[in-house]
């Protein structure tokens, strides 16, 4: 197989001065890479033929031939569809398994529809258990939403349910089972709705790029394992080697201080992903990483890539080394284009990006899991024989105090003295007399003409300061030398992290500096109240002062030398439709106990919770506070979540909103759809508890 290595633009690597990140571990267990032949195999016979829909030839049927052709996923288009749900033999890893499949394939066929048309889908359930299909992100009548127990009784074994609804939107969406763990065993696929108007951007070719996670294990067993040992799948914990390294660099006392909070809270700094590459093979369009998916392009073409995270439990960090991506849609809706090197796509989100590859190159589409335990991959090339180098996984990051939603305004006793604060020699800087306490509001007001501060975001842009009301007065900064944790967003904007310049801050006396308070809504620190239901054996932490961190790319992506998409970058291409301010605010806390693997909202699990009632037509603000250490993708069925990403006149419409650990976020909803709607975290194994009914009356 001829390979090309001509990546002139190079693979972007993470800077080496981040001691907060562990070094790439050569002995890290390789994740399940998958079969050489890749993909699903040997269908037991396609069941169900569509009547007026066209079917593309199934390109995945070939046993063990080393298929070098560009992968072509099954796609159905038209207005009337017959879909069947069956058990289907698959083989992604060398071990044959039974999947639950729609029309015989995993992933399910891509459905290509047209905005303005009405689609009819006759779905027959050939399983021996109840099933369902939910159309994720679609605005449709409540009875068509596909949630058993809320909008219908599901599809019983042997029965057929006929969905019929008009398409009032265009874009990239997806569909999946809403029954049991069937989404994990293969019932997921992508929906492309072509717009009735012209696209607001140009492209010559388009590809769907679905990202999913396949496990050979029965998901009921995975769930039971998580209940018995919640870190079962985490093979990236900090070990003795990390401890020794840290002690060597920063001293015993400082190491103990740094780890004190985690030790007292009995939490792991590496709790990034519940289910990992230890059991998952990550798929791109159903192809395992061994060969990956393949898409071809011709010279000069602009390619539209429709990324959809159709996985059960996995966030992916996507980049194409050598190629910038212009993001043009988020969750199916057009946004003001923003060009990035990399984006994180949470479970259930979609992003459309445009790339302009150079015909002399082949490119790897690299989608590494947030937990850094594996990746899905694809190749964009002018010729099907070409492949590009696959980057290594980024180092595994450590969660920080910010991710715990710690109240940073009173960091008494935090001893920076021994901490390795890379880059800057801050010896002798006496912050002890600085009055930087700002209470609830942000203390800033730094002198931006001072070159020390000029690089700090607080000075660069009023919208994105990184210095919260941190009380430096009690910090002993006497002996600081190198090695500041640059993965901590608190420090990310500082010069010491951005480059190797070493300002000498010896004997700088801050004592006379008057540092007034600067309020800034983007870095709004609020101390939150927690409901009584948030105390008990089912809760292991509460964020004291969650931050609105719209410009935080997220754990593992901070300061990695690449431009990473953040929610602050996402603005609607079109003006906000409903310009009314919200009439009320609903604050919801995402809660749980990782060790017991219990998840809830406001400390109340779904089975014990009352519905959230919205009056038809009202406009509300939902504020989500994440009282856990994991990112949760929160999905509201039936109505748009208009993310307050910084410009009220151009609020992006999303269906899935990722709330980062220890963070808060807010969005507006117009309750314009009557009925009982599901509202939940889209991490499959959290869904049982972190779930609410939204009742619009």
């Amino acid at each position, binding site marked *: 197989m001829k390979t090309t290595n001509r990546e002139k633009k190079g693979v972007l690597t993470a800077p080496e001065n981040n001691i907060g990140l562990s070094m790439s571990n050569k*002995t890290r*267990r390789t994740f399940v890479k998958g079969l050489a032949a890749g993909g699903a195999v040997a269908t037991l016979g396609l069941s169900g033929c569509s009547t007026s829909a066209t079917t593309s030839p199934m390109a995945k049927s070939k046993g063990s031939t080393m298929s070098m052709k560009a992968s072509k996923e099954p796609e159905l288009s038209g207005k009337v569809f017959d879909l069947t749900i069956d058990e289907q033999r698959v083989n992604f890893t060398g071990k044959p398994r039974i999947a639950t499949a729609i029309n015989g394939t995993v992933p399910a066929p891509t459905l290509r529809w047209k905005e303005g048309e009405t689609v009819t889908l006759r779905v027959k359930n050939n399983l021996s*258990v*109840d*099933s*369902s299909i939910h159309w994720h992100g679609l605005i449709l009548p409540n009875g068509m939403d596909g*949630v*058993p*127990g*809320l909008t*219908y*009784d*599901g599809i019983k074994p042997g029965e057929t349910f006929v969905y019929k609804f008009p398409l009032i939107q265009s874009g990239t969406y997806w569909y999946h089972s*809403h*029954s*049991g*763990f069937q989404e994990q065993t293969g019932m997921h696929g992508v929906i492309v709705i072509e717009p009735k108007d012209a696209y607001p951007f140009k492209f010559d070719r388009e590809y769907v790029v679905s990202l999913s996670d396949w496990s050979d294990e029965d998901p*009921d067993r995975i*769930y*039971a*394992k998580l*209940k*018995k*040992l919640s870190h*079962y799948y985490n*093979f*990236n*914990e*900090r*070990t*003795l*080697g990390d401890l020794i390294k840290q002690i060597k660099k920063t001293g015993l006392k400082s190491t103990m201080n740094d780890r004190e909070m985690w*030790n*007292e*809270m*009995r939490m792991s700094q590496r709790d990034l992903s519940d289910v990992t590459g230890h059991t998952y093979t990550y798929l791109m369009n159903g192809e395992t990483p061994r060969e990956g998916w393949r898409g071809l392009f011709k010279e000069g073409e602009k390619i539209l890539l429709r990324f959809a995270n159709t996985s059960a439990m996995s966030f992916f960090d996507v980049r194409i080394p050598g190629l910038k991506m212009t993001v043009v849609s988020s969750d199916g809706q057009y946004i003001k284009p923003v060009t990035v090197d990399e984006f994180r796509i949470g479970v259930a989100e979609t992003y459309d990006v445009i790339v302009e590859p150079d015909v002399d190159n082949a490119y790897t589409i690299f989608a590494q899991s947030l937990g850094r335990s594996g990746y899905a991959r694809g190749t964009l090339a002018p010729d099907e024989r070409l492949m590009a180098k696959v980057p290594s996984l980024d180092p595994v990051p450590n969660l920080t105090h910010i991710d715990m939603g710690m109240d940073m305004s009173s960091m008494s006793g935090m001893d920076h003295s021994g901490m390795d604060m890379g880059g800057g020699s801050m010896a002798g800087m006496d912050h002890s007399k600085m009055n930087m306490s700002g209470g609830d509001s942000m203390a800033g007001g730094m002198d931006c003409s001072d070159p020390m501060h000029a690089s700090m975001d607080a000075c660069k842009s009023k919208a994105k300061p990184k210095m919260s009301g941190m009380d430096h007065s009690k910090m002993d900064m006497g002996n600081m030398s190198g090695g500041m944790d640059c993965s901590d967003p608190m420090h990310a904007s500082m010069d010491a992290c951005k480059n190797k310049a070493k300002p000498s801050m010896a004997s700088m006396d801050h004592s006379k500096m008057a540092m007034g308070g600067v309020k800034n809504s983007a870095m709004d620190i609020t101390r939150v109240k927690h409901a009584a239901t948030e105390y*008990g*054996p*089912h*809760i*292991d932490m509460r964020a004291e002062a969650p931050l609105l961190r719209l410009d935080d790319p997220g754990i593992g992506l901070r300061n990695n030398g690449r431009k990473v998409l953040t929610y602050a970058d996402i603005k609607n291409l079109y003006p906000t439709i409903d310009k009314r301010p919200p009439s009320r605010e609903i604050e919801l806390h995402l809660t749980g*106990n990782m*060790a*017991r693997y*219990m*998840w809830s909202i406001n400390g109340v*699990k*779904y*089975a014990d919770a009352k519905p959230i009632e919205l009056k038809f037509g009202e406009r509300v603000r939902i504020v989500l506070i994440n009282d856990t250490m994991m990112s949760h993708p929160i999905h509201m069925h039936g109505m748009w979540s208009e993310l307050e990403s910084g410009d009220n006149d151009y609020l992006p419409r999303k269906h899935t909103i990722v709330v980062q650990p220890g963070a808060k976020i807010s969005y507006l909803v117009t309750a314009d759809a009557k009925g009982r709607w*599901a509202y*939940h975290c889209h991490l499959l194994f959290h*869904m*049982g*508890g972190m*779930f609410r*009914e939204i009742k619009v009356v």
Partner: protein
Amino acid sequence: MSVLPAYAGMEDDPLITKLMLGKFEVGNLKGTNPIAWESSAWIGKDINKLYLKFDGERVNGKNQGTESQLLLSHAISAFWDVQGGIRHDTVPGASRDYATIGVQGVAPYFFETDASLSFGKNNQVKLNTSFEYEMMLTQKWVLSPELGLNIYAKDDEKMGVGSGLSDVEAGLRLRYEVAREFAPYIGINWGKKFGGSADFATAEGEDTSETMLVVGVRAWY
């Protein structure tokens, strides 16, 4: 329309069972090579479980001592369960029954703790404690020091225990997790009897302290 959880068939708090063989080892002690085990089984849900615990030691085909407990376990805080029920201890030729109540959980700094207070006939009260720490040398090699101590209110000659601090046991085990559920290990175990317990042992012609190497397996399902 049914009122089942919206996920047909997805129960957020299913009934689960866990079988645990925390220790199953043989020690090299003067040719007696005692076999020792610590095992437990529970069935239940997130907050409430029914526990069965069974520990013991066996030499030359005969049980030297066993401890069995049947407990109701209730989660009271993020990291602690309170457990109450009955306990049955045996030594060759004698046995005792107790009502027992205790806590099991993880203390700050990740010390796994099991401590119980048991109440028996003749106003006997005893405190059994054990503390264990797991240090990850690598993702698969785990070094586990542990400490246990037992205190009795009253002498109980038939059981070979004296009042006060009765015995202390300390161990260091190194296991290799072939899989999460299966880990062979080697280690050192040290035990010492004190006070009345030491006297009773000496009277029987036994040592009051012993150190031995152990090799065993830790498994769960």
